[in-house]
C-alpha cells in the first residue's frame, strides 16, 4: 500500500530546524510580552459559528472553514483570534481589572481559494490591550508590535499606517451612489477610475494622504494625530520604514452608507497598521483599534491589538521558518 505524503494546498509542515527556529523565536517574543505585562490566554481551535454572525465580521465569512458536527451544531475552525477573544471577554469585563493586557499564540486557518500562493494556515502571535483609550493605547500597541517585529526583521520592516473611515466623507461625496465601488478603485490605486470623480482622492492615491488634512472633513483631526504618532515611532524605530497611506485601508469604513470592504478585518474603527518584511509581498502582521467589536457585544471598552504571522515573518527574513 502506498501512502501519499502530500499535504492539502496552502498548508505546510515545519520539520526539525524550521520548527526549532519558530519555537525559539516564539519563546523570545512571549518572554518580551510577559516583561511588558501581557498575560497569556489559550483559546480553542473550534468554536460555534452562530455568535459571530451578528458581529462586525461579515466580510470574513467566506474564509471560514465551517462544518456540522454530530450534534448538528455548525462549528468553525479558528480563523481570527480577536473576535473570539472579544466574545469570551465581553461578559466578564465588569469583574476584571482594567487595563487588561493579554497575548495569545496558535494557528488560524483561512480558506484562500483563488489567490496565488495563498496560505491557508498561519501561526500567529498577538497582543490585545483593553481599557486604554485614545492615543495612549494605540501608542503602546504599535510600539510593542514594532519592538517585536523589528527585532526579527532586522532593518527590513515596512509599516503602513492608516485609520478606519479616513476616506468616508470623500467617498460619499464623490461616489455617485456607489461609494463602495469607488473605495475599491482607490484601494487598488486605479487612478484612471478615480480621476473623473475626485481630485482629493486622486491625491490620496498618489501621495497616501490628501493635500491638506482638512480635505478629509471630520477625519482631519485623526490624520493630524496619526501624523504625530508616525513621527514619534519613526524616531523610536529608525530602522523601520513608515508609510502613511490612507488608500491602503480605503475598504475599511465607519459610515453605514458605505458597504464594508471585502477582505479587510472589518471590525477596526480607529488606527490600522499593516507590516511587510524583506522582499515578501504578503503582510507579516498588523493590527489596530476595534472598540466597536466589544460594543457589538454589549461591552463599552477601548480595545486595540496586533497580530504577527510568525511563520510568514521568519520566511520573509531568511528562508523558510
Amino acid at each position, binding site marked *: 500500500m502506498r501512502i501519499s505524503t502530500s499535504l492539502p494546498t496552502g498548508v505546510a509542515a515545519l520539520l526539525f530546524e524550521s520548527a526549532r527556529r519558530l519555537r525559539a523565536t516564539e519563546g523570545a517574543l512571549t518572554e518580551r510580552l510577559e516583561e511588558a505585562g501581557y498575560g497569556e490566554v489559550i483559546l480553542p481551535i473550534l468554536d460555534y459559528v452562530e455568535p459571530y454572525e451578528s458581529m462586525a465580521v461579515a466580510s470574513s465569512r467566506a474564509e471560514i472553514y465551517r462544518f456540522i458536527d454530530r450534534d448538528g451544531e455548525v462549528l468553525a475552525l479558528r480563523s481570527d483570534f480577536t473576535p473570539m477573544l472579544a466574545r469570551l471577554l465581553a461578559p466578564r469585563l465588569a469583574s476584571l481589572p482594567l487595563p487588561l493586557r493579554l497575548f495569545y499564540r496558535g494557528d488560524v486557518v483561512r480558506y484562500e481559494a483563488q489567490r*496565488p500562493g495563498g496560505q491557508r494556515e498561519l501561526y500567529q502571535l498577538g497582543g490585545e490591550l483593553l481599557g486604554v483609550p485614545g492615543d495612549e493605547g494605540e501608542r503602546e500597541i504599535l510600539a510593542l508590535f514594532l519592538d517585536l517585529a523589528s527585532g526579527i526583521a532586522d532593518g527590513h520592516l515596512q509599516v503602513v499606517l492608516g485609520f478606519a473611515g479616513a476616506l468616508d466623507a470623500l467617498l460619499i461625496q464623490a461616489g455617485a451612489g456607489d461609494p463602495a465601488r469607488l473605495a475599491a478603485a482607490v484601494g487598488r490605486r486605479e487612478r*484612471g477610475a478615480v480621476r473623473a470623480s475626485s481630485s482629493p482622492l486622486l491625491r490620496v492615491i498618489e501621495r497616501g494622504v490628501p493635500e491638506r488634512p482638512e480635505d478629509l472633513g471630520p477625519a482631519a483631526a485623526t490624520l493630524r494625530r496619526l501624523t504625530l504618532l508616525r513621527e514619534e515611532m519613526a524616531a523610536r524605530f529608525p530602522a523601520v*520604514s513608515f508609510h502613511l497611506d490612507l488608500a491602503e485601508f480605503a475598504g475599511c469604513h465607519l459610515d453605514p452608507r458605505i458597504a464594508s470592504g471585502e477582505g479587510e478585518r472589518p471590525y477596526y474603527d480607529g488606527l490600522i497598521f499593516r507590516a511587510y518584511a524583506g*522582499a515578501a*509581498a*504578503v503582510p507579516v502582521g498588523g493590527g489596530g483599534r476595534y472598540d466597536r467589536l466589544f460594543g457589538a457585544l454589549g461591552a463599552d471598552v477601548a480595545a486595540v491589538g496586533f497580530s504577527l504571522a510568525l511563520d510568514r515573518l521568519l520566511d520573509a527574513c531568511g528562508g523558510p521558518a
Partner: protein
Amino acid sequence: MIRLALPKGRNLDAALAAFGAAGIPLAVPGLSSRSLLTRNPALGVELLSLKDWDLPLYVSRGIADCGIVGSDVLEEVDGDLLVLLRLREGGCRLSLIGRSPEAVPAPGGQARLATKYPNLARRFVAAQPWGAEIVELSGSIELAPLLGLAELALDIVQTGRTLAENGLVEIATVEEIAPCFVVNRASYQRYRGRLNDWISRLEAAKVAA
C-alpha cells in the same frame, strides 16, 4: 532595482511600445519572449519574462515587484494586486461565442459553456436568466462550440477573424480587456516614488486607457 515582470505573447509588444512612448525604454538588446531574466541597468530595472497565467503569482509573492498582465487573467486569479494603470493598446474583449445567437438558452434554460476562465464564467452566468455547466479547457476554446462539446464559449476575441473563418459568431461582449500595470502592496510602498513617476509619464504619453 525594481523587478518588472513582462508577459510573453500578445501583451509584450503593447507593454514595450507604451513604456517606450513614455520615455521609459525597457527594451534592451536580446530582450524577447524567450529571454528569462534581463537587466536594464540604465533604468535600474530587472526584466522577467513570464507567461500571463504565472505573472500574478510572481508579483503576489514578491518575486517580481510589478508586471504587465491582461485584465482577463488578473480578474480570473484575484491576486490582491494594485492596478496602477490600464494600457490603451493591446486591448481585446472577453466575449460569448457560439454557432449562432440562438445558442443562448431561453430564460430558465441550461447550456454548456466552455472556457479557460471558470471564475469569470461563473460570475457571468450568475447574472444571466439561464444557467450553464462550466466546461473548463486550457486552449482551443473555439473548438468546443464548433464540435459540440459545449453550446457556448467564453473567450478572448481580438479581431473576430478566427471566429468568422470557423463559422462562429460573437454573440455578446462580456468585458473589455486591457493590459494592466500591476504591483504588489509591499513593493508599491517601497518604490512608490519611481512607480508614480512612471505612471505620470505613461499618462502624459496618452498610452493609458
